[in-house]
């Protein structure tokens, strides 16, 4: 992972994950929405270039993304209403996040065959990180794992979260911020250690 991608990860984490409820089920919904938006956004961008709609491309792309978000919200209202209420305003955060806008508007257009795997690769790799983050917050904060089922939300209780009050902090917004910061510090620490090892090997050789 290079530095640019770390900054992208920080930006999307700040924009999308921090303010979301610390539940694994919420993470699943947001990650699915992010992937759907990236896929449709890439297709629409290709459509815009193919049919030479570049002058109105930005407005068209944004409109499509907002419509997709609205439909996602309506689908949630119909299928899992409690999730729609729980997420509320957060559903709109991935749509205007730096991640999607950066990749949609920032890069030059190339062939669709290359663009889709590249963009979906970015999104899927981030999705794994986001899901692990949500899973940690769910387990540490509430002592549960929440999943989406046909009947709505399913909550698997792992332990009584009241017994370890200190970890409840990670379910809150400041807890998520601290968690992100700690992950970054650990990452930098590990990378620096590897650099020292590489340098030592070079000197030894």
């Amino acid at each position, binding site marked *: 992972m290079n*530095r640019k991608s*770390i900054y992208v990860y*920080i*930006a*999307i984490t*700040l*924009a*999308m994950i*921090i*303010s*979301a409820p610390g539940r694994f089920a919420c993470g699943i919904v947001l990650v699915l929405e992010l992937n759907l938006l990236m896929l449709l956004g890439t297709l629409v961008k290709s459509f815009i270039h193919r049919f030479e709609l570049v002058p109105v491309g930005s*407005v068209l792309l*944004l*409109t499509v993304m*907002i*419509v997709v*978000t*609205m439909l996602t919200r*309506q689908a949630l209202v119909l299928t899992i209403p409690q999730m729609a209420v729980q997420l509320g*305003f*957060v559903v*709109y*955060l991935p749509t*205007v*996040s*730096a991640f999607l*806008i950066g990749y949609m508007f920032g890069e030059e257009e190339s062939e669709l065959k290359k663009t889709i795997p590249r963009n979906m690769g970015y999104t899927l790799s981030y999705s794994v990180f986001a899901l692990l983050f949500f899973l940690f917050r769910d387990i540490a904060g509430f002592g549960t794992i929440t999943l989406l089922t046909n009947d709505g939300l399913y909550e698997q209780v792992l332990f009584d979260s009241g017994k370890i009050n200190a970890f409840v902090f990670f379910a809150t*917004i*400041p*807890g998520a*911020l*601290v968690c*992100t*910061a*700690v992950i*970054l*510090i650990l*990452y*930098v620490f590990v990378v620096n250690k590897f650099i020292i090892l590489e340098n030592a090997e070079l000197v030894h050789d």
Partner: protein
Amino acid sequence: MIDTIFYYLFYCSAVLVYGIGLNRTAVLSRSMDKTLFLLIIKMIITILCSTALTWVVILELLVPADLVELFPLAALLILLAVSVFVEILIRITTGFRTSEFAVSYLILLLSLNESTEVVNSLVIASGCILSFVIILPVLFALRKRIEVARPRNDKIKKKSLIMITMAVIVIVLGVWNVSWLNQGVL
């Protein structure tokens, strides 16, 4: 009215609790220059005009047609139109570029979503804008403090320290909810 502004400014800050522009504040707080000032001016004009216009559209068009759920789309189209107009004015008069979309749109959505009338939505929007504006000098000062204290610090470490401090600010703002200083707790 003042209660609502303070609610979105401190207790339930649009930036720190709702997460609107959390990443933008981290970027914009790098320097306090004229572009930032113009960006804030543009945001204020754009958001307040769009909020009032969108509210009228919702009331006059969407409510009679039972299509209130489409308000984010109406808000987007109105915001884009107003934003482009204000952007052109700023570019012609000052020559600066002040492109900003995500924060303005999210504040607009929040103010429309949580209001009961047009004045209420304008007050909420003002509170959200203030919460965004007020956090910038705090983060700028924080960055300077970290730079002075640890000049050879890694950029990622600096970001981590800023995030931890933001967490502390959230706790400080929310502590009144449980503080023993509150009346009725003891």
